[in-house]
């Protein structure tokens, strides 16, 4: 017994020694170097994934075009010019003009603003809401039953139809588009968060926190949330992408962003009726939509591999 | 598909760096035939200078480097070593189970009943697998297909290799189940693997392997996943089958106790090489290689004093891309000298039955 004790003491003494020598400047330096190395490894891993880099570049470029739209293009996306209707591509109008003589290039650029705004907002909102619902459900049995049943019910309705129905009821409006698409995306997000949270909850360190008397809220947000955030971030990227698709689809059906506003879906909807005369009205916004979504999907895959290298697409 | 596999083997011979084949071409190619001709008739498997390498993200890694040994009819040969020493790779190379299109590159010879298996086409190889050489794996739950009945999986072997009717196959499968000690085989025949206990599943896997009465059974850690009492039963079964069918058995394990009880000869592997070979009595009574000594010393013994600490070999098996220069065991060897770190010791005989790969044989 006494020998054991002595052993323990020497061990702890040695530990104390080690920490003492390491708490100095040397330790800080070591920590910094390690962190730097880790970062370098992660960046290398990300950049070695060609798809992810391509996705990031595409997304950043579209974002840049959207932000710089007034600088790049001097046309007003809403300005009518009935003399120059359905003009093909020229130096003045690189993407041609539409049925009312509006510059398609300007409309595509300003459309990027709307699409990215809707997609981003929906992604973030559903991420946050999904996490709140999922975390809450994982800690409260009654709430779990009610919330998850509602999620099941919502998930049983195909998302396209649910979005269309909500838009029909709420009325075509950009705020309603965001609301409808968020409602559509929250259930899966909540399921994901809940699933992760249920696993985390059983971990010993959460048990330990509970024994130490940490409050429920504190455990939930300070200790569980950081551990479920990575899959949520990945999912947010995919929701971002699918919200862009859905917004375009809704606007295309006339149930999304109201008409004169230059959303990609609206441009496509107007282009559809003159597709035999003016292919460019459909082609360019279509290509932009597809490219942006592709970029986001690749980026999402990249982030997932980055966070969790064991998963395979 | 077969054609591709065949071509690969031919390509291998053409492309392979000479350094790998030199020794063979130099003096063995002629003498190999002689050696075989003069080899005792009861040798069923002869592995000569086997090298197995994998194309990985980190480049080409050799998991097995120049392994040679033989198995006689009715003999039980034990292959021991820590995890990552290449025991399983050796056995799966003999069966050519790796994907030869991309992943793996073999050199050397695996002569089974005189025939070099690396010369066979994929189709010919299929007739060897399961019929002439059979294999039992570690984890029966994951090695039996979960969506087919036990009976189906035994019958499949028979139906592939024996030209028999369904009824006949069924009859023999039920017999086989009875033979490996499964009670009520008629009922078990229709059950799925998940409905059986761990020991039962292992018996089923043995039944699958032995269905066609193979000449050689490769058992890759057949008892590792089982309870101790079940382990003994399964080992008894393997020994019984070994006697009954007079087949050679290659028993891969890291359990030295099992080897001592069942095998007649032992091979000790370390990092893709054989470091010692001998009769069970040789290896257990007077091990020559420090690695073997280390393994022996790390087995708990009943007669040891209670306070005594178990011996351990310091460090772990290095990764394949970090193979040390010189003797591969040198970095972990308590007796290593400068010479050990510089060059690789030869595999030399220490008696008529025992060989070891160490510079300091006799000194220690």
């Amino acid at each position, binding site marked *: 017994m006494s020998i054991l004790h002595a052993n323990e003491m020497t061990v702890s003494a040695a530990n104390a020694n080690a920490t003492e020598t390491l708490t100095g400047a040397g330790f800080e330096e070591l920590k910094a170097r390690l962190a730097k190395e880790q970062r370098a490894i992660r960046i290398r891993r990300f950049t070695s994934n060609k798809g992810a880099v391509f996705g990031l570049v595409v997304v950043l470029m579209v974002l840049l075009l959207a932000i710089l739209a007034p600088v790049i293009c001097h046309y007003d996306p809403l300005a009518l010019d009935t003399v120059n209707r359905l003009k093909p591509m020229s130096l003045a109008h690189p993407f041609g003009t539409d049925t009312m003589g509006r510059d398609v290039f300007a409309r595509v650029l300003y459309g990027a603003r709307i699409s990215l705004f809707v997609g981003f907002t929906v992604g973030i909102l559903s991420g946050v809401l999904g996490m709140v619902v999922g975390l809450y459900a994982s800690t409260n049995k009654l709430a779990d039953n009610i919330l998850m*049943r*509602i999620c099941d*019910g*919502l998930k*049983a*309705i*195909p998302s*396209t*139809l649910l979005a*269309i*129905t*909500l838009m*029909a*009821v*709420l009325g075509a409006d950009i705020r309603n588009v965001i609301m409808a698409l968020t409602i559509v995306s929250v259930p899966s997000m909540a399921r994901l968060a809940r699933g992760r949270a249920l696993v985390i909850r059983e971990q010993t360190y959460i048990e330990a926190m509970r024994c130490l008397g940490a409050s429920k809220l504190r455990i939930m947000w300070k200790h569980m949330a950081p551990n479920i955030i990575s899959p949520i971030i990945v999912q947010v990227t995919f929701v971002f*992408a699918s919200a862009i698709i859905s917004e*375009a*689809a809704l606007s*295309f*059906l*006339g*149930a999304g962003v109201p008409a004169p506003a230059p959303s990609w879906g609206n441009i*496509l909807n107007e282009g*559809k009726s003159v*597709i*035999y005369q003016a*292919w460019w009205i459909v*082609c360019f916004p*279509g290509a932009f*939509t*597809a490219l942006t*979504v592709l970029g986001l*999907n*690749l980026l999402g895959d990249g982030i997932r591999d980055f966070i969790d290298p064991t998963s*395979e697409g | *598909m077969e054609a591709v596999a065949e071509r690969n083997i031919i390509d291998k011979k053409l492309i392979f760096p000479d350094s790998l084949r030199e020794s063979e071409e130099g003096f063995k190619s002629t003498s190999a035939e002689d050696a075989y001709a003069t080899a005792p008739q009861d040798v069923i498997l002869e592995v000569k200078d086997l090298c197995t390498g994998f194309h990985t993200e980190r480049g080409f890694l050799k998991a097995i480097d120049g392994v040679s040994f033989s198995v006689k009819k009715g003999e039980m040969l034990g292959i021991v070593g820590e995890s990552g020493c290449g025991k399983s790779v050796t056995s*799966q190379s003999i069966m050519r*189970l790796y994907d030869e299109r*991309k992943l793996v590159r073999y050199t050397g010879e695996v002569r089974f009943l005189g025939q070099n298996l690396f010369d066979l086409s*994929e*189709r010919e190889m299929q007739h060897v*697998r*399961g019929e002439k050489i*059979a*294999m039992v*794996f570690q*984890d029966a739950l*994951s*090695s*039996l*297909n*979960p*969506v*087919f009945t036990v009976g189906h999986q035994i019958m*499949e*072997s028979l139906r*592939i290799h024996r030209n028999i009717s369904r009824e006949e196959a069924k009859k023999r499968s039920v017999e086989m189940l009875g033979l490996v000690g499964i009670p009520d085989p008629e009922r078990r025949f229709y059950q799925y693997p*998940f409905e059986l206990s761990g020991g039962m599943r292992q018996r089923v896997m043995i039944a*699958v*392997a032995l269905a066609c009465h193979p000449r050689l059974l490769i058992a890759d850690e057949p008892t590792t996943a089982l309870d101790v009492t079940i382990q003994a039963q399964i080992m008894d079964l393997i020994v019984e089958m070994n006697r009954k069918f007079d087949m050679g058995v290659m028993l891969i394990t890291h359990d030295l106790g099992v080897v001592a009880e069942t095998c007649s000869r032992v091979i000790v592997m370390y990092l893709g090489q054989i470091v010692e070979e001998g009769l069970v009595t040789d290896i257990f009574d007077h091990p020559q290689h420090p690695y073997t000594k280390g393994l022996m010393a790390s087995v708990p013994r009943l007669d040891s004093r209670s306070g005594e600490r178990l011996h351990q070999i310091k460090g772990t098996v290095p990764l394949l891309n970090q193979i040390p220069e010189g003797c591969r065991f040198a970095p972990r060897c308590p007796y290593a000298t400068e010479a050990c770190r510089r060059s690789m010791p030869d595999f030399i005989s220490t008696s008529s039955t025992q060989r070891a790969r160490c510079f300091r044989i006799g000194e220690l």
Partner: protein
Amino acid sequence: MKRFILKRILSMIPVLFIVSVVIFSLVHLVPGDPAAAMLGDMATAEDIAALHARLGLDRPLVQQYFVWISNIFHGDFGDSVANHQTVASMILSHLEPTIHLTILALIIAVLIAIPLGMIAATRKGSVVDHSVTVLSLLGISLPSFLLGLFLILVFAVRFKLLPSSGYVPMRQGFWMHLKSILLPAIALGFMNAAFMMRMTRASLLEVLGSDYIRMAKAKGVREMAIVTVHAFKNTLVTIITVIGQSLVQSLSGAAVVESLFAIPGLGQLMVNSIGRRDYYVIQSIVLLIAVFNVIVNMFVDILYGVVDPRVRVS
């Protein structure tokens, strides 16, 4: 097995109940008075009151729900506000094109995607594998209406091979019929095909790396049989799931594709009803498809049990 099936069928009931409640409440989310919203700005107070009475909007919500549900059980989905037809008859008259379109889209997806996904997995790193990866990435980034527009540009506008809009019923000739729904079916099926390819490849890859495949090879099973018998039956669970999902996806995605190609199906009826504020039509179609979805999921669950004996027991 019988008990297993019964359990699956019974477990459907609570989900159906929740789905119906959700769909019922959707329409009652309308800000303000639904009757006023349906009738538009030109409606008089009497009109609104009359509609109130007809729809039973004055009664408490719970009672409204039960009236609605019991009517549906009697095959009465209510009347169209805009059209003076029963919703049931409107749905019936729009059913055929949607069914044909969905089936063709599914056939295209299944016939292309599953074999390609399997080849990609067995030939990992080959040209087929890389094309499958690229194709499936493109597929999930190309929504049906976008692909539809591109298909119209190429096959209708540029080469004039296929019509860009309109629907020819089956009774006017099979080939004309097929031609009229070919482009929409491709547009509808492509995303599902991409998803199927991805899932088939991933799950077959996982199975091919498993111990029992190695065991099968060690038994001397031919490579072809390993893939088509041993691995296939284990990937079947994934494939069944994906096919089930694709079926529902096609049916609901038809809304967008039908209005693009001017096909008089359920989807088009639904989209047109948005403009007419004909909530009962929308509600009924959504309910039908959601119920169909739940039933499909039940069948998928039961098929799991057929394929995988472990599912039956747990």
